[in-house]
């Protein structure tokens, strides 16, 4: 598949430093209109989240009002205490961190390695192998939980977080994403030059590919962490509420015949705070320009 992709854009000779400096001054400066648009987008993105804080700070009757309440109530602390006493949230948060962290590190690393191979190295069966990786994403996963559970029971992993981590340690999404990204982001000439100098493949990976992959790795890391953190279908089946992830305890919090939304959404809030921390940390890594330096240097 990747052979049919366009070659990466080649920019003609980099401008001299002086001119570059002058041009930087000319670079697009976002105007007021931009910020206005971003604020509007942010409003629509944040509103449901803000509204869950509203519900979490009220009692369950808040939902019965039309129009629904939009201001905070005084019940947040009470609901937080209830959530923490009803379920083992601390344990769930630790487990979720272990699970999502391990999956993220592994997915980013393996995807970058495989993406490098698919985008920049030549080997027999490359196209077919890449296609088959893309094809694995097309398999509907809903039914997989039954046979996977049988498998986990056989190796006695049910009830342990290994059962959640190991099958998710690499996926087609990550490999395909990195393949596509690296095919445009890493200049082949640079690798060839490295090869001629006698660099081994792994050194090329380490010194050229990995730095260039940083923005994509950060985004892939965020998306992977997010997906792993939010996954509930499989963890609910294979884990027990005694040793849960966050999504498993959230199911417990909304367990009544009639859902107590103030409690359920309080739980949901606790569950996303760690995500925000991870996002901010990884979000700072989305910086370009490293390769430009390398190419020119």
């Amino acid at each position, binding site marked *: 598949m990747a052979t049919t992709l366009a070659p990466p854009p080649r920019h003609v000779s980099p401008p001299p430093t002086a001119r570059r400096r002058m041009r930087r001054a000319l670079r697009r400066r976002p105007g007021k209109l931009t910020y206005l648009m971003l604020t509007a987008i942010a409003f629509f993105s944040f509103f449901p989240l803000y509204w869950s804080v509203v519900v979490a700070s009220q009692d369950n009757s808040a939902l019965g009002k039309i129009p629904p309440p939009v201001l905070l109530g005084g019940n947040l602390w009470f609901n937080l205490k209830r959530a923490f006493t009803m379920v083992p949230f601390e344990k769930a948060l630790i487990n979720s961190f272990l699970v999502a962290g391990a999956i993220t590190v592994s997915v980013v690393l393996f995807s970058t390695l495989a993406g490098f191979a698919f985008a920049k190295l030549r080997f027999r069966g490359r196209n077919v192998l890449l296609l088959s990786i893309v094809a694995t994403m097309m398999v509907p996963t809903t039914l997989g939980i039954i046979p996977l559970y049988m498998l986990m029971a056989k190796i006695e992993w049910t009830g342990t977080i290994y059962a959640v981590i190991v099958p998710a340690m690499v996926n087609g999404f990550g490999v395909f994403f990195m393949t596509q990204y690296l095919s445009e982001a890493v200049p082949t000439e640079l690798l060839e030059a490295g090869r001629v100098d006698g660099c081994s493949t792994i050194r090329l990976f380490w010194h050229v590919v990995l730095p260039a992959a940083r923005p994509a790795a950060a985004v892939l890391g965020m998306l992977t962490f997010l997906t792993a953190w939010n996954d509930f279908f499989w963890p609910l089946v294979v884990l027990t509420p005694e040793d849960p992830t966050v999504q498993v305890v959230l199911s417990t919090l909304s367990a009544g*015949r009639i859902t107590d939304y103030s409690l359920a959404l309080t739980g949901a809030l606790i569950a996303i705070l760690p995500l925000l921390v991870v996002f901010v940390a990884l979000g700072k890594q989305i910086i370009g320009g490293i390769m430009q330096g390398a190419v020119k240097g």
Partner: protein
Amino acid sequence: MRRFTAVVPIMAVALAVAACGNGDGDDQAADDGPVSLTIATFGEFGYKELYEEYQKLHPNVKITERITKTEDHHKNLAAHLATNTGAADIEALEEGWIGQFTANASKFVDLNELGAGDIKSQWPEWKWNVATSKDGKTIGLGTDVGGMAMCYRVDLFKKAGLPTDRAEVSKLWPTWDQYIETGKKFEAAKVPGAHFFDGPTVMYRSILGQAPIGLYDGDNVVVDSNPEVKKAFDLSALAVTSGLSARAEAWTPAWNAGFAKGTFATLGCPSWMMAYIQTQAKDASGKWDIADVPGGGGNWGGSWLTVPKQSKHQKQAYELAKWLTAPEQQAKVFQKYGNFPSTVTLYEDAVIKDFVNPYFNNAPVGQIFSKSVSTMKPQYLGPKAGDINTQIINGLTRIEQGKQNPDQSWQQVLTDVKALL
């Protein structure tokens, strides 16, 4: 095809291994040795204090409870039964799901073999029957029930010139036909912003529940031939086409808001609905009251405790389930959490008989609900009752949405139901 034959050995290994989880009596712990029991529920059982009490009575038993959301719980249980591993020692089942599980009773311990037959008389016949398979295996002991009554808005009835006292209101609708007639009178009074009932779902279920034979006659699905099913459908459809419905679908924001706003004047009410109305319409105390349901008996909701065959402690699990569902314990749960007991002996007890709800103008709800539970006829639900009901209720919704007339809708219901079988 070749591929599949090659696969057979792998499959056999996996299946055999999965079957290893099957506790088949031999490896049961000795009766009085220390034993750890897990019980999986979906969070409305109110057993927390009871576990402690039981552990005090039986120092060798340690109880762990797993609570998940109702849908998640039943889906997990199906997965764990299919793979013969991972289920808890006691698994709760809800009314809406139990039919499918009873139809495959071989995955569960037949509690009759452990002596459950001796306590059968605790429950109304229908409650016992729902958990009993056609070949007589009883897989579950009843916990709570919903019962059925009719909640109504006193203020709206007054505006419409209808009686407001609950005894008189009950007299308005001994039958569902009269309920509809009352509805027409209500609509004729044109109370602003209000309709007679919320929507047809509960009405349909209640009417069908009052018939001796429902969707199944023995093994056969008789939706197309049983006049009782058609009657339930037609009456509900008539109520809709007569303009009685507020078209507020259950559990939507519009429905939730309707309790306080008064967009509907009546609502089929199981006992657990009381708590819901109280939270949704906190400041409307005294505006809602409770009368008898038309046609007499009825039930919506309630659960059972079962023991999966894969449990390694079947006997101890049964003992615990038996203790938890005994009248004394059900009374405790009722007093603390309000789950309406399923054991008929309690209905003569002061706990139930004298129970009134101040929010509903001190309605004697203990008596109202126990009457509906004990007069309910035993009806065989059948394995696919839940899915079939979904199709029929979808049909009623189509009428309500103006997509089809009752005849078209019923024809499609018949096709849809046939596709399920």
